[in-house]
């Protein structure tokens, strides 16, 4: 492992070690570029992960103070927990379920295909599927995505059997065990899945790809990586010319440090990345870094989500095996005849008894609630995840008075569903209910959105500087050596789980940064 001095201004500093930051760091290190990787959380491992929902939640979640506003139910039920994401080496790739789907061609050009949707701030991405295809291929190979590169699909569990039976009865054509970054065979030095059922809690087998178990160890082997866990970044600094030149963070001993930088890449997830840019305001950048467009923090997206749990007369034992064990992709098409633009995916989901109590009907109690819990062993579950509309006023701001443990303003997450989101959710609930009833359900429970796991869009890519924050390479429109490297870059949300695309963009961004550094442009 490299030991890069604080006053060394030749390295790339990457903030955040999740899907974007962890991948970018490794890709740069493989090219011989020195990287300081700052991660706010601690370093865990397969050995230290827990098959215990609340225990793991306390171990790897981002639990720093946050506030919420807007009409979404999360703001009422989980007012201090807008997002269920991670603060640990590997970021939310420790927690993700592994679904790895490419964004569809039309979704990259949402404004063109969906038209002018009232109240939505739609924009085409400044790149196309064609631009990303070679990078998607690299990402799928890197992550060992099933059903790509000759890798077999995972065996379906009981929860999948229920979804599949219902899907077939309704005539759905595309229902299978998904494209998953979970080894169905031993691959890349990691074992195959043993169907533990705790994908969300950090995979104790290392069968599920994460930056913690794949990218970061590979980067460390190059000798170019200086990984600093428990390094919580407070702000990014710049020189007189306006270029960023240092990052200030609190280290594991609670001391403030300043790390000099040649290039800074922000990858703290779509809540922390804009918060950091906003908290880095200066006399030269009074609205925060890279924010002359006023778009930093805006267009926050979190996917149209919802879940359905259904009870049957006989046992399902849905918790046995992969958390996201199968998918129906038929509804992911754009078909305005359904009453909304964009589409959604239907993916099996299971949560354990402790989280079912917390999430089935947040705030719920009484006989109906108990009846559902009484039938937990006979329950099947699916998650509905679709494209939500970017809206300017759905945004991350920094709080005027509330401060975190380091004295920095906390982020406020404001979100209100767009009517298109509501129409899509209703449709998805209806289709999901039909699937479970076709499979013999005796009761179906629609479940409102959980705290957000897919946080997107708050530093979006745009062709024109006035429409967004970064260009098609994630490079800030107004600061050449400042990059955004996570899901904040997404111009629109698309229906697909975002991690594969975040990894893909990071691989592409690494090529670009290396080229720009070689050309001395940055």
């Amino acid at each position, binding site marked *: 492992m490299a030991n890069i001095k604080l006053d060394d201004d030749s390295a790339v500093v990457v903030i955040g070690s999740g899907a974007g930051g962890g991948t970018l760091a490794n890709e740069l290190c493989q090219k011989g570029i020195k990287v300081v990787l700052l991660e706010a959380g601690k370093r865990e491992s397969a050995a230290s992960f827990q098959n215990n929902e609340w225990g793991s939640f306390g171990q790897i979640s981002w639990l720093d103070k946050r506030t919420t506003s807007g009409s979404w139910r999360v703001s009422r039920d989980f007012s201090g927990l807008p997002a269920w994401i991670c603060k640990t080496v590997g970021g939310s790739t420790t927690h993700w379920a592994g679904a790895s789907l490419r964004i569809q061609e039309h979704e990259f050009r949402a404004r063109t295909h969906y038209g002018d949707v009232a109240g939505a701030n739609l924009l085409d991405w400044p790149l196309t599927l064609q631009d990303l295809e070679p990078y998607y291929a690299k990402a799928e190979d890197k992550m060992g995505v099933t059903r790509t590169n000759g890798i077999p699909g995972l*065996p379906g569990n009981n929860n*999948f059997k229920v979804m599949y039976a219902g899907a077939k009865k309704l005539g759905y054509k595309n229902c299978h065990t998904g494209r998953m970054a979970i080894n169905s065979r031993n691959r890349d030095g990691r074992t195959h899945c043993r169907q*533990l059922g705790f994908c969300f809690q950090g995979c104790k087998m290392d069968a599920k790809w994460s930056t913690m178990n794949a990218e970061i160890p590979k980067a460390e082997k190059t000798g170019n990586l200086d990984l600093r866990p428990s390094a919580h970044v407070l702000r990014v600094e710049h020189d007189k010319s306006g270029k960023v030149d240092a990052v200030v963070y609190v280290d594991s001993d609670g001391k403030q440090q300043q790390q000099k930088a040649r290039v800074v890449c922000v990858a703290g997830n779509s809540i922390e990345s804009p918060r950091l840019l906003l908290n880095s305001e200066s006399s030269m950048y009074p609205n925060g870094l890279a924010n002359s467009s006023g778009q930093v923090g805006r267009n926050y997206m979190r996917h149209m989500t919802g879940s359905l749990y259904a009870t049957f007369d006989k046992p399902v*034992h849905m918790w*046995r095996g992969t958390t996201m064990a199968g998918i129906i992709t038929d509804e992911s098409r754009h078909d305005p005849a359904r009453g909304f633009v964009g589409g959604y995916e239907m993916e099996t989901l299971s949560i354990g008894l402790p989280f079912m109590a917390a999430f089935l009907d947040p705030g719920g109690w*009484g006989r109906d609630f108990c009846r559902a819990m009484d039938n937990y062993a006979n329950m099947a579950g699916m998650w509905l995840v679709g494209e939500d509309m970017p809206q300017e006023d759905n945004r991350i701001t920094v709080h005027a008075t509330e401060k975190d443990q380091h004295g920095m303003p906390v982020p406020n997450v404001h979100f209100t569903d767009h009517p298109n989101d509501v129409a899509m959710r209703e449709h998805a609930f209806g289709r999901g209910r039909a699937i479970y009833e076709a499979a013999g359900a005796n009761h179906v429970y629609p479940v409102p959105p959980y705290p957000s796991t897919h946080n997107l869009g708050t530093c979006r890519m745009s062709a024109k500087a006035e429409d967004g924050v970064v260009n098609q390479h994630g490079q800030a429109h107004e600061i050449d050596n400042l990059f955004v490297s996570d899901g904040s870059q997404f111009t629109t949300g698309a229906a697909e789980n975002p991690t594969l695309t975040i990894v893909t963009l990071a691989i592409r961004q690494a090529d670009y940064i290396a080229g720009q550094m070689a050309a001395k442009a940055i």
Partner: protein
Amino acid sequence: MKQTSVKVDSPVGVSRRQFLKTGSGVLMGTLAAASGVLATLAPSRSWALTLSAMSNVEGAKLLKVTRGIFPHDTLDDAVYALVVKDLDAAAAKDAGVASLLRDGLKQLDDLASGDWAGLDYLARENLVIKMAGTDFFEKIRGTSVVSLYNNEMAWAHFGYEGSSYEMGGYFDRGFQDLDWLPDPDADASPAKA
């Protein structure tokens, strides 16, 4: 269900009979005969919970209130006692919580025009429901939603199997054992490695 594989190590507060040490009350009970599942888990059929802030009578009432909010008819009192344990601990730490709980219990007696705890369980439940939305109700509901369902006795009762890593996951232990629906095509769900 693999009941025998679920172990209760130091069964989370409800364990062997523990006689008075400190605190003002001891809540005691015996596992109901019906709850065969729990009987296999617990070291003893008798359980006791030492209280720090609440009295025996108050503890017993809080248990009944919890049953009223989360009425699982066949779930043993021993599991509900875990909620009382956490409420008692919160009351011991914060006098405000102690008075919130005591005042709530008094209000229930007022609603019952007498001894709320002496009513039959449906009558008790109906009065608890009237308290919905109060701080008292929310304190017990919010505590229960974690405490009632996040323990190995509850897992055994509801059939949830908890940690699987130690047993090699479900790869060879039933992740595909559902037999009341047809198996998916091999294209959709390939054979396991």
